[in-house]
């Protein structure tokens, strides 16, 4: 626990409730207080008037007066409905206090007259200094852990791409076809890192339609076309050599790049976006139909990025981690139904209904994954 300051603030949501003998303070007028005096909350059966929409980072005290006829509750939520603090059972006429530690960020306040439903929500902004993200030792460890993953994948990528390239150059179509989805697996797992280097990605992984005028169609998908559509790799040698040297270059750059924790969070989401737009539709590997290999690799790569962030996420949003675990498992299970031998069924072997099930599970997973970056950025 080297960074007790930040984590402590997040983990502790202290709550004190006073018996409500003091008179109800009227809703404060004026703009956001710079310091943190008491923030008056006027709760009724139909409204939840919070005295300010902005408080300074640190300890905040909310003083909730129930002017309605139903028992009410008051909550402060972080994004994703994570409870930062709550006061329950505020009977009509009573005033109770909620004292919580709030780091900078955006929150929601909520009164729940009748104590059911989502409550009457309002926004709350918490402003103030916070340290740069990479100063956080836990975050630094997360990026270091992911960098190690990238290194392990790039090592395998070099080996497997070399085998694939060798098979192409040797004119061994069957061997090359077998190695094509395997070598791509290592690429697809870390694709968002490769995409940082904008000029290399289309050369290595560009599909035919993204190739601009005057640019040669190269890379994996060009060789895929030669193998499956043209069925002639006698002239593919130079393309294969080019692929190998481009892959070497991107590997070198990827391992030199210093990634930020935000890039991990966003990369995990981007990998699922890749699945949703390219793999479910069968657009990625349109000649070989080996899209499910890429699908599995994207999913694994996304999970690897999330796992690297796991200690950070657990400290900051345990509920999100639980959801992520459930949804990753659901997606893996859905995909597992299409395993065939050591690999996967071809995209063309799946029915529309089966593809919809996969699409639903990816949508279900990508929503919570899209929340990671904001939690990391807190």
């Amino acid at each position, binding site marked *: 626990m080297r960074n007790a300051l930040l984590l402590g603030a997040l983990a502790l949501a202290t709550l004190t409730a006073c018996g409500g003998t003091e008179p109800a303070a009227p809703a404060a007028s004026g703009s956001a207080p710079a310091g943190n005096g008491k923030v008056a909350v006027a709760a009724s059966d139909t409204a939840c*008037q919070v005295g300010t929409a902005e408080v300074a980072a640190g300890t905040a005290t909310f003083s909730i007066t129930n002017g309605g006829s139903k028992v009410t509750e008051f909550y402060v939520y972080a994004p994703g409905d994570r409870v930062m603090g709550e006061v329950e059972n505020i009977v009509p006429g009573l005033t109770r206090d909620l004292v919580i530690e709030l780091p900078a960020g955006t929150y929601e306040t909520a009164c729940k007259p009748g104590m*059911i*439903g*989502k409550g009457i929500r309002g926004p709350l902004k918490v402003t103030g200094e916070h340290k740069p993200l990479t100063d956080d030792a836990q975050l630094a460890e997360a990026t270091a852990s992911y960098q190690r993953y990238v290194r392990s994948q790039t090592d395998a990528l070099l080996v497997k791409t070399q085998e694939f390239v060798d098979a192409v150059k040797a004119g061994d179509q069957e061997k090359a076809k077998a190695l094509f989805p395997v070598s791509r697996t290592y690429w697809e797992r870390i694709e968002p890192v490769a995409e940082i280097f904008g000029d290399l990605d289309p050369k290595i992984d560009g599909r035919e339609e993204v190739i601009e005028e005057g640019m040669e169609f190269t890379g994996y998908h060009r060789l895929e076309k030669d193998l499956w559509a043209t069925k002639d790799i006698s002239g593919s040698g130079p393309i294969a050599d080019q692929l190998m040297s481009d892959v070497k270059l991107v590997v070198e750059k990827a391992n030199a790049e210093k990634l930020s924790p*935000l890039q991990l969070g966003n990369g995990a989401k981007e990998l699922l976006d890749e699945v949703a737009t390219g793999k479910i539709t069968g657009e990625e590997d349109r000649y070989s139909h080996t899209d499910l290999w890429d699908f599995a690799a994207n999913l694994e790569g996304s999970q690897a990025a999330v796992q690297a962030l796991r200690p950070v996420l657990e400290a900051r949003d345990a509920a999100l981690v639980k959801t992520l675990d459930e949804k990753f498992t659901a997606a893996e299970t859905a995909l597992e139904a299409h395993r065939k031998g050591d690999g996967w069924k071809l995209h063309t072997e799946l029915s529309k209904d089966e593809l919809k099930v996969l699409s639903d599970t990816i949508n279900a997973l990508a929503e*919570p994954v899209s929340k990671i970056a904001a939690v990391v*950025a807190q």
Partner: protein
Amino acid sequence: MPGISRRKLFGLGAAGVAAAGAGTLAVASLPEEAAPARTGSASDPVPFYGEHQAGIVTPAQDRLHFVAFDVTTKDRAELVDLLQEWTSAAARMTQGQDAGTFGAVGGVPEAPPDDTGEALGLPASGLTLTIGFGPSLFDGRFGLADRKPAALAELPKFPGEALLPEISGGDLCVQACAHDPQVAVHAIRNLARIGFGKVSVRYSQLGFGRTSSTSRAQATPRNLMGFKDGTANLKLEDTDMLRDHLWVAEEDGAAWMAGGSYLVTRKIRMHIETWDRTSLTEQEAIFGRTKGEGAAHGMAKEFDEPDFAKKGPDGQPLIADIAHVKLAHPSSHGGARLLRRGYNFVDGSDGLGRLDAGLFFIAYQRDPHRQFVPVQLALARQDVLNEYIKHVSSGLFAIPPGVRDAGDYWGRTLFS
């Protein structure tokens, strides 16, 4: 006050405007008893809370986005949680606010916004969101099997229908109606997004022009065949008839449905190209009404009651027994009436040089098996119009009563 209102003047009541800048005021509910006959400006909000759901007797708006969902979660609590989240977002969006409290641009920059943003700057536009529960929701997954109302028994097969399962049925539906198509689409898109992982869109349908009026303050619009549609519709001013024909009463069987209604949807593809080659005389004979005024044959005005006994000089009835107006008329079905709320659609073209066009039929009623079913059976068996139309999708949904206030949610009476 980030994210409070897309457009403050429309989004908040007077109190909210007065409080702007002073802090945060979340408005929970608008007056529940808004004057029913008010059509107001096309940009005004329609109250969300009330005894009945809005979007039924609400004067029919110009645009529709209808969606049916399959529930994918197996967890009842997760479904209830979603209904609560939806209710909260619906209450906000119908009042012209963003779907979430931070809105399209008010949240943390690292997070995807809690509203998709395409309705920024647009007023509420009369948006109503109406939820329904399909028969399949009561199949036992959520412990609801013994709560299924008898009225929600599946519709019989009608002669001639060619239903496509992928655009029929659904565990849940939401009807979004608004005067601005962007507002209706925005609402469905945000609800679908909130539902990821719990529900999956089964199908959705856009409608661009209302084909019924649900208030005497509205003129009767025309369907794509060029005829006035729904002249004899139930209208919000007919309070007694609404009680008898539209709203479910406690004694009807399922107490949780009291104050609710039942919805039948039918996507009716029209062969408009062949219809357009049909003579005016034949078109009018098929409907039993004039195309211009919309009067039943033998009558002068649209709202004159048809006289089915009236005969022409040839001794034949002026309105044929198989004319649409006769087959569908309440007098042919023991007085059965519907509140119709359909929309014209054109889903592009069909690849054969024809418009993929027709009517997305929407009808609300107290008991579909005593109202829609007999009418549709008569139509399906005899209506000459069948040469020009084809029913391609069907939906049946229980429409629960309205959400009473901020502490209530869609479907509470069913799940509690």
